[in-house]
């Protein structure tokens, strides 16, 4: 394996770790459950996909690499669905929005 190849893999993994860390910071800093879901869904999806892509570059088209790509595809498909289910469940069970939120059309429409 060439050095460039190796470096590209490491760079993707480091970028992915960075986004995962930003997602965690967002989870701690943002005020309510919906904003937190935003941060975690977006950052963690792309962060983890980036780590998996880095793994694929490092390992090549072998046992590990193919699985990494497959996991990345599943993650892209299922992570937004999970976030949607959590947000809807939270709203249905009466979790209020952050007091400074500007609008809640969902509440107004009687859901």
């Amino acid at each position, binding site marked *: 394996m060439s050095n460039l190849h190796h470096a590209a893999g490491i760079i993707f993994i480091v970028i992915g770790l960075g*986004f995962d860390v*930003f*997602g965690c*910071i*967002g989870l701690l*800093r*943002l*005020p*309510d459950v*919906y*904003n937190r*879901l*935003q*941060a975690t*869904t*977006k*950052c963690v*999806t*792309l*962060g983890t996909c980036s780590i998996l892509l880095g793994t694929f570059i490092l390992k090549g088209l*072998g*046992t590990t690499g*193919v*699985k990494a*790509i*497959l996991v990345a595809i599943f993650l*892209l*498909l299922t*992570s*937004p*669905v999970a*976030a*949607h289910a959590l*947000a*809807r469940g939270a*709203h249905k069970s009466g979790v209020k*929005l*952050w007091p*400074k*939120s*500007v*609008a*809640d*059309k*969902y*509440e107004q*429409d009687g*859901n």
Partner: protein
Amino acid sequence: MKSKLVLFIVGFIVWSLLTWPLDFQHLIVGLAVAAFVAFITGDLFTPSLQAGTGFSRITRYLWLCYYVPMFLWECLKANIDVALRVLNPKLPINPGIVKVKTTLKSDTGLTFLANSITLTPGTLCVDIDAEKGILYIHWIDVKTQDADKATELIVKPFEKILKNIFE
């Protein structure tokens, strides 16, 4: 029958990738498992296929090739956007739930629209009313509360492409 066949092929491909590298014994087991799963759950999978929308239209695959890079690019922008918001000491957020309209009808199309919206900058799909064609979107930085203007900003970029792919 057609959806069962599609599910069988998809299931078998996923199995083959999971047990990579290809091996005779794995493939035999994979055939049995994929056939079993397709037999049991074939009718639940992609009801829109049964309506006969057709795989043969070439244009939808071309639109799909256009959609995937665009989606990944939007996803990257969303990440940078959220990261900047989170790292900013003032925490510049202005959240709220807004209502947008869509003209998509098929379940697959709506699912992909909701997923795309969730993974693009600042928006998260909270609920879908499929009959009325309404999506409730949690927006981290509400620019407008008007349903039509919000539709223009959030839904339009994807709707046209998804309409060409799934309907």
